[in-house]
């Protein structure tokens, strides 16, 4: 995925995103906060305006695209790299997992896998920095930090499609 960024003096910034079929999406972010979305059918084609958004609307739509409200593919890991070594990952706790009903301390998560649970998303609410006495519930989304191997171990531990 290549994204070209260029300055538009007096206007704002331009981002050009290569899509899979050779098409390009061009996003012009104005200094005023307005966003304009254009489409190019190929690199050399003229841009055709698709729509424009106010700053507020653009952020809202961006959040939706990011999957903040709904992750269509829950079983696939959502990966975010902090550094080359450290990842933040989201795991859905399968109701069948042995961890359901245990506290973080009882499950000995840090000792067994090396990852730390930094937040738990439970329905509408988010428990930031849960303490060791927090009980894990079915369908929690666990946000963990750790290196690649630790995350893999954790995936195995919680079961689900990691398999045990």
């Amino acid at each position: 995925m290549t994204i070209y960024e260029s300055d538009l003096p007096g206007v704002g910034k331009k981002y050009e995103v290569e899509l899979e079929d050779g098409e390009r999406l061009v996003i012009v972010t104005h200094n005023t906060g307005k966003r304009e979305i254009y489409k190019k059918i190929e690199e050399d084609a003229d841009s055709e305006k698709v729509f424009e958004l106010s700053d507020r609307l653009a952020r809202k739509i961006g959040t939706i695209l990011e999957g903040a409200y709904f992750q269509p593919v829950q079983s696939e890991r959502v990966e975010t790299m902090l550094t080359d070594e450290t990842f933040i990952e989201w795991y859905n706790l399968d109701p069948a997992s042995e961890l359901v009903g245990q506290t973080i301390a009882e499950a000995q998560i840090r000792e067994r896998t090396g990852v730390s649970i930094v937040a738990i998303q439970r329905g509408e609410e988010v428990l930031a920095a849960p303490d060791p006495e927090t009980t894990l519930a079915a369908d929690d989304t666990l946000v963990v930090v750790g290196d690649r191997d630790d995350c893999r171990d954790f995936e195995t531990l919680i079961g689900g499609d990691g398999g045990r």
Partner: protein
Amino acid sequence: MAAETHLVDVGALFAVAAVAGLLASRIDQSVIPFYIVAGMLSGPYVLGTVDIPALLGIDVLPHGETLALDGQSEFIHLGAELGIVFLLFFLGLEFNLERLLAARHRIGKAGSVDLAVNFGAGLLLGFVLFESLLAALLVAGVVYISSSAIITKSLIDLGWIANDEANPMLGTLVYEDLFIAIYLAVVSALVLGGGDVGEALGSIGVAIGFILALLILVQFGTAWFQRSLETDSNEFLVLRALGILVLIAGAALALGVSEAVAAFFVGMAFSATDHVHDLEQLLEPVRDVFAAIFFFWIGLETNPQLFAGVAGLIAVAVIVTTPTKLLSGYLGGRIYDLDERRSLRVGLGMTTRGEFSLIIASIAVAGAGGAIAEPVATRIYAFTVGYVLVMSILGTTFMQYADRIEAVLVPRLEARSGAVSSGD
């Protein structure tokens, strides 16, 4: 001339300008030429000469003289001056030295080609037409500087902003803006400093000293500029910004330095702070109002009868400097590795001349009778206004009909350069 302005005159000014703007947007043209023409029509040279009672045969309306607005009026003149200050302030606000340096390679190349071709052609043209070095320098500036305001707006309106041709166009405009800031400082010192060489050198010295002081202020005063606008209230922000901007610009003018240049540097100083976004949002309407007064004032000061005398000069200038911009824009596009079609578009867009040419014209008038002989200054002024009227409309039209122009020219360009068409 009576320089008294009543409230109703100011009301008339805004009403006429508003109607002119409405007309311009109806036919998809730039507002600038319309403001100028509106000013011309409401000025002493057109409306002021109409004997309305005689025309209508009734005494309901007074003679046009009493209705006409007057460019000498203090309010309008000061409004126009504020317009110049705001235009340049915004230029400075958008101007980012780091960005320019980051892209200096291409911007430098494309901008230098643009400068060499157009400024060079302008010098020759000015010398041939007006037979004086100072006049040549003024004409060179007038034909060199493309209109940032019109071009940027057209880019956004036409959706070219998302295309590759936007980069060389905006980049070249940045180069031009920086050049024009320095140029204005030197030329206004030369023009306003009187005809004497020693005196001119003295005033250039003052100008350069003032600019250096401003540059030091920009370089080391960022923290102060940042703090100066720390407030949650829009009202205070606008007032403080105006207090700093207009005070420094006014002080510059009092010292005989171009207020436009001072405003540019104040804008540059603010460009390094976190307030850029707020300033742009809050001051944009203020800028547009005063810029409209400036264009209107340019029209008020223009006697259309003088066009007859300079029509030949304008025609020559248009015939010479349209191809020069087309060429330099095309070359600029090639420097940015664009294909024939997009390079041609860069040229088409860059032909638009506007606000800065007019600012140079107003400097010529300010120096009339001093460094420049009165009749020459008047001719340069009328020439510039006519030239900008033609070039602003021509450039906007070029951009609107780019597709058709490309259809004719691109195959020839490609045939000439032997390039393989990459297919549309």
